[in-house]
């Protein structure tokens, strides 16, 4: 029998590195294969938009009515203004609500959790119909009249912000809740003994330690808000003063301007891409990559 040489030993060692994943194992083939297919599917959709526009050349831009261009510019400004206003409202409310859900124990907590998560699973158009019912026929009628007197009609930018808020806020609440749950309660206890009131402990310990998750939740919620479509069609419609990117995209599609609709879709894809990059960059896993 041939004695094992040094070279043979080193080869064997390189083949049997413990913990190293084998790229031909069934698990890697199935999971990795599906992952690749999914990434390809999304990539194909984006590529289809880009190639459609490229196939049309740039001539269609010159052929466009200036009214359409102004409309798209207005929709872009309106989308940014309303979604950023919504983001401010979301951050002001989702952070305290997320903290309450993470730290307080009270009767009916699981029911409250379900209610808070409801907008995530509801079809967005249901939010629009509920808003319309609330301000049109229910207890919200006097509120609507009061808002009308302040020139905050439900059919104006106010309605856009309300719709975006109700559809998107749960994403941030959920993220904030998870972020606060990840803060070691013993650190908050130490801060209390060190002389901080509950309020100061929140500002000095809980919030700084949870801020990555909160900011990531805010970005996700903003990306969701800027893409809201169904409730807007119900609540504010497609009037020229209430157009945002998704409703403009639909309007252009319905009037045969496919190129404009695809161009808006690409702008929205770009915004979503930026938002998701920020989220991944802020998450601890993303930072580690």
């Amino acid at each position, binding site marked *: 029998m041939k004695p094992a040489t040094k070279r043979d030993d080193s080869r064997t060692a390189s083949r049997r590195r413990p913990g190293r994943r084998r790229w031909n194992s069934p698990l890697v083939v199935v999971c990795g294969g599906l992952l690749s297919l999914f990434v390809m599917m999304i990539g194909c959709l984006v590529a289809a938009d880009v190639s459609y526009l490229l196939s049309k050349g740039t001539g269609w831009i010159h052929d466009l009515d200036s009214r359409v261009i102004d409309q798209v510019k207005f929709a872009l400004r309106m989308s940014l203004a309303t979604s950023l206003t919504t983001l401010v409202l979301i951050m002001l409310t989702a952070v305290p609500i997320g903290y309450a859900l993470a730290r307080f124990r009270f009767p009916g907590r699981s029911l409250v959790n379900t209610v808070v998560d409801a907008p995530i699973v509801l079809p967005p158009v249901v939010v629009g119909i509920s808003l319309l019912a609330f301000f049109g026929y229910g207890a919200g009628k006097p509120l609507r009249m009061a808002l009308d007197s302040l020139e905050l009609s439900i059919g104006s930018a106010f309605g856009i912000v309300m719709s975006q808020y109700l559809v998107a806020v749960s994403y941030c609440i959920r993220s904030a809740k998870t972020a606060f749950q990840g803060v070691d309660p*013993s650190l908050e206890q*130490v*801060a*209390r*003994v060190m*002389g901080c009131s509950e309020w100061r402990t929140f500002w000095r310990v809980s919030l700084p330690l949870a801020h990555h998750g909160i900011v990531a939740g805010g970005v996700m919620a903003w990306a969701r808000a800027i893409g809201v479509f169904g409730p807007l069609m119900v609540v504010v419609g497609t009037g020229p003063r209430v157009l945002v990117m998704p409703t403009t995209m639909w309007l252009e599609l319905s009037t045969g301007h496919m190129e404009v609709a695809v161009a808006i879709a690409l702008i929205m894809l770009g915004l979503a891409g930026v938002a998701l990059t920020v989220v991944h960059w802020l998450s601890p896993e993303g930072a580690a990559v």
Partner: protein
Amino acid sequence: MSAPGLELRGVSLRAGDFAVREVSLAVPAGEYFILMGHTGAGKTLVLKAICGLQEVDSGEVLIAGRDVTDLDPCERGIGYVPQESGLFPHLDVGGNVGFALDLAGLGPEEAASRVEAVAREVGIGPLLGRRIRGLSGGERQKVALARALAREPRLMLLDEPVSALDERSRGEICALLERVHSERGLTIVHICHNRAEAEALGDRVGVMNAGRLESIEERSPAK
């Protein structure tokens, strides 16, 4: 005669199914008191009751003669070193040591000089700008001790501050605790599991079992 540094009068409390019953104890000002017992004996619960982090069902907690039973943890003026140091990972060492010194009425300059002085005393001067993540277990415990001392409390509560450390760091921290205690004349209540450590440090050793303070042993003549 001056009031004890810490006094518990018939303190009872519950946490889930576990109950601490009728714990009475007087720790004279300046004494180093060790609280021992098996895991689950109720030592940490008693410590949390003294801090105000655990609600007391009956009985009284007095610090330097003042009834603090119903006071918020932030109003009790206690120095606290929890298990595994409890350092704030979003602050550097200096930020941890100087944490909330503004609430103790110190201006920024006064707070900075207090931080430097305590860091020198505890031997962590060179670490002040370092992040918490890179510190060893022993360094973390020193920072936690410095943070507790920076507010100049009269009563210090230490919850197993050396149990997770290697032997060398343990000896170093124990020597530091002994020095700080004698130099500052602090009243210290220290939870530990190690009999040798208890006898080396403590003036008296209280032994808890199943939620009761079973016995209090006087200091060993060797100390």
